[in-house]
């Protein structure tokens, strides 16, 4: 019986593989007693194949439904989904192309095409279902979503233009930014939409309250419709980041809050991006500028340049741009309200009323810490040890206030030291020393050192680090160095996260140690003891 069953299974599998599947009933025509067990074994094999992602055919061509349509195939007149006829391309963004389409009943819609590397998973489809339930006057409605032709297609309301288009209009007319009265109206509406998204909403989920972070607030995603403004593309970032094939990054660097670089999203992350957006729309400039590495560094550590704004607005915006998500405004609406009145007055009342209890308790300590930092900074700048180079190792960044016992909490602060020498000169000189092709000699991990293939190499050029493994380019990362630290810091972006590292240059030898992605502790030396997740790589200049 077992042999017979094996034969039947083999016939079934070979038929399937050859594209001529045989039904179970047909297979068991002469042996109906095997019908049940054959069915269960076929079900088991099908489940296994689904899990293994294994095609029963060796090299079967993809079916028409599986075949991926390229952007080139999108053309006016085509109906990618029954009832939706493409009219013209409206634009292209990080996630895909947007087309104007005529939907059922002759209504115009915007149809977004996002190429997929694979079918959306069950959780992503559930997330899309959640998005379809989101309705708010200031959110661009999603009318439908489909998977076909290798794309996720999302039909949305069609807007007149974006706030970036509006900014272009006003700057063309010689103005620096959108007039405040007009912009504040937009900001109030955007804030209402974001607050609605960001607050847990019982109407969105079946059982639990769900909140949505937009994660990509910028002028291009804010749409003008009939004089009002609506937020577009909400929720797609989260759904698509694992599935899209050609997205250039899961965030827009200029608007990204610092916590994104550390792999976190906070309830106030969208507020940060909204504040950056406000700076651009109001004053025509971004608070952090420069090359990507400098912008990232600015978000993480820098003080925003708010000189494009009137003085009365800067405090409100500065709070929305706080590095600490908890220190920002409780809601986007409160941030925008603060812009409409005198910033300093509103700051005081709202911040003390809404700060968490713990934060209120710590506030006196923090203020003292800030004073201490200021004193240390001034002392460093004007003191006798100026230009002597770094005296404090990075692990001393955590500063305890002296001689005050338990009364004062430890406060984590940024390294208060000003650069000991002119940073641009140091950076330029060090960048020049680092530039070039480096061949990897060894890797030390978990206490073990191993020689690595000599064709593994890294090209350092500008702020780019190109990793090539056996003549095949694997990745390009951006990196930032700080040669004023001891050991010298070398941080690279890995996706949306920062990999903290250190390096040392000894002639033609470069040693680079780094912590696991997302780990906030920078290595302090160039060792990787057993049990450690630090990786140490040694390179030799080519």
């Amino acid at each position, binding site marked *: 019986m077992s042999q017979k069953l094996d034969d039947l299974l083999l016939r079934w599998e070979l038929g399937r593989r050859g594209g001529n599947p045989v039904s179970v009933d047909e297979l068991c025509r002469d042996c109906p007693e095997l019908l049940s067990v054959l069915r269960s074994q076929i079900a*088991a094999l099908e489940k296994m194949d689904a899990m293994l992602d*294994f095609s029963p055919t060796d090299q079967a061509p993809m079916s028409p439904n599986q075949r991926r349509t390229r952007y080139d195939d999108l053309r006016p007149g085509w109906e990618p989904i029954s009832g939706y006829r493409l009219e013209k391309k409206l634009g292209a963004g990080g996630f895909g192309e947007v087309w104007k389409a005529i939907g059922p009943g002759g209504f115009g819609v915007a149809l977004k095409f996002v190429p997929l590397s694979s079918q959306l998973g069950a*959780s992503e489809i559930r997330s899309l279902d*959640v998005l379809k339930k989101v309705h708010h006057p200031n959110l661009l409605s999603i009318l439908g979503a489909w998977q076909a032709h290798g794309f996720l297609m999302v039909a949305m309301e069609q807007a007149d233009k974006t706030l970036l288009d509006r900014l272009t209009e006003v700057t063309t007319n010689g103005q620096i930014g959108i007039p405040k009265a007009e912009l504040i109206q937009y900001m109030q509406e955007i804030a209402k939409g974001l607050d609605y998204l960001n607050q847990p909403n019982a109407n969105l989920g079946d059982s639990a309250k769900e909140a949505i972070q937009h994660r990509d607030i910028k002028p291009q995603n804010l749409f003008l419709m009939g004089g009002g403004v609506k937020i577009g593309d909400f929720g797609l970032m*989260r759904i698509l980041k694992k599935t899209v094939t050609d997205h250039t990054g899961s965030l827009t660097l200029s608007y990204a809050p610092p916590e994104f670089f550390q792999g976190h999203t906070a309830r106030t992350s969208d507020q940060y991006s909204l504040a950056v957006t406000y700076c651009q729309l109001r004053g025509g400039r971004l608070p952090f500028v420069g090359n990507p590495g400098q912008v990232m560094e600015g978000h993480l550590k820098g003080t925003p340049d708010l000189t494009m704004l009137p003085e009365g607005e800067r405090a409100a915006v500065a709070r929305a741009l706080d590095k600490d998500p908890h220190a920002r405004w409780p809601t986007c609406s409160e941030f925008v309200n603060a812009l409409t009145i005198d910033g300093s007055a509103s700051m005081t009342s709202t911040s003390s009323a809404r700060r968490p209890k713990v934060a209120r308790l710590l506030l006196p300590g923090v203020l003292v810490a800030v004073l201490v930092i200021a004193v240390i900074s001034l002392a460093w700048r004007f003191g006798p040890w100026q230009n002597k180079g770094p005296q404090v190792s990075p692990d001393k960044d955590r500063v305890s206030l002296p001689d005050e016992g338990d009364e004062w909490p430890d406060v984590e602060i940024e390294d208060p030291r000003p650069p000991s020498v002119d940073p641009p000169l140091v950076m330029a000189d060090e960048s020049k020393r680092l530039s070039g092709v480096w061949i990897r000699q060894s890797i030390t991990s978990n206490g073990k050192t191993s020689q690595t293939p*000599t064709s593994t190499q890294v090209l350092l050029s500008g702020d780019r680090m190109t990793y090539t493994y*056996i003549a095949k380019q694997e990745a390009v990362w951006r990196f930032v160095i700080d040669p004023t630290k001891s050991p010298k810091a070398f941080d690279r972006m890995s996706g949306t996260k920062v990999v903290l590292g250190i390096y040392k240059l000894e002639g033609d030898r470069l040693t680079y140690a780094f912590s696991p992605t*997302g780990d906030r502790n920078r290595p302090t030396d160039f060792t990787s003891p057993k049990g450690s997740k630090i990786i140490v790589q040694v390179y030799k200049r080519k």
Partner: protein
Amino acid sequence: MLSGTQMVESQTTRLQSYIDRLKAGDAKAKDELISCACDRLQRLTRKMLKSYPGVARWEQTDDIFQNAVIRLCRALNDTAPESVKHFLNLAALHIRRELIDLARHHYGPQGPGAHHDTGAGQAETPIAVASETTMDPGKLAQWSEFHKQVEALPAEEREVFNILWYHGIPQSEAATLLNLSERTLQRRWQSARLKIFQAMNGTLPE
């Protein structure tokens, strides 16, 4: 344009040439062999981690490759592959162990992924609720269990599994490589999958 089979045939030929070069003392041939194995590992790792964004938070794929490269380098230093079949089995073994270690390390009882508080305690609920809150150590452990069950297969079936799934070589090519008829190969493949399914009580990783 080459058909898939032709591509794999040329890959097999290429693998054989690397092995011949390695035997002749060409150290660079080792790099090429490792590259072939890492390509496959990359695909399998992505497949395994696709449903587990929590893992990506802790271990980026480039870090995994570094571990795999180290492991394969050591293996090739210890044992020079004698044939393509030998290399494919050796590489599959290390790919499998790397994936088992990955799951064990990150989603074992003491693994950081098992205890990580997504959102760092902030009062937010992400949109991708279903996937992001499924920080279920058991699910990734199922992958680990799957790889272990492959390890436990009879040698002949494991060899077929190694070549068809871990290396993604088409059945016709695999049959030639293993000097088997396609029906025999198919029988072993079928038997291997059913054994794994039964050993896992039908509970498979998604």
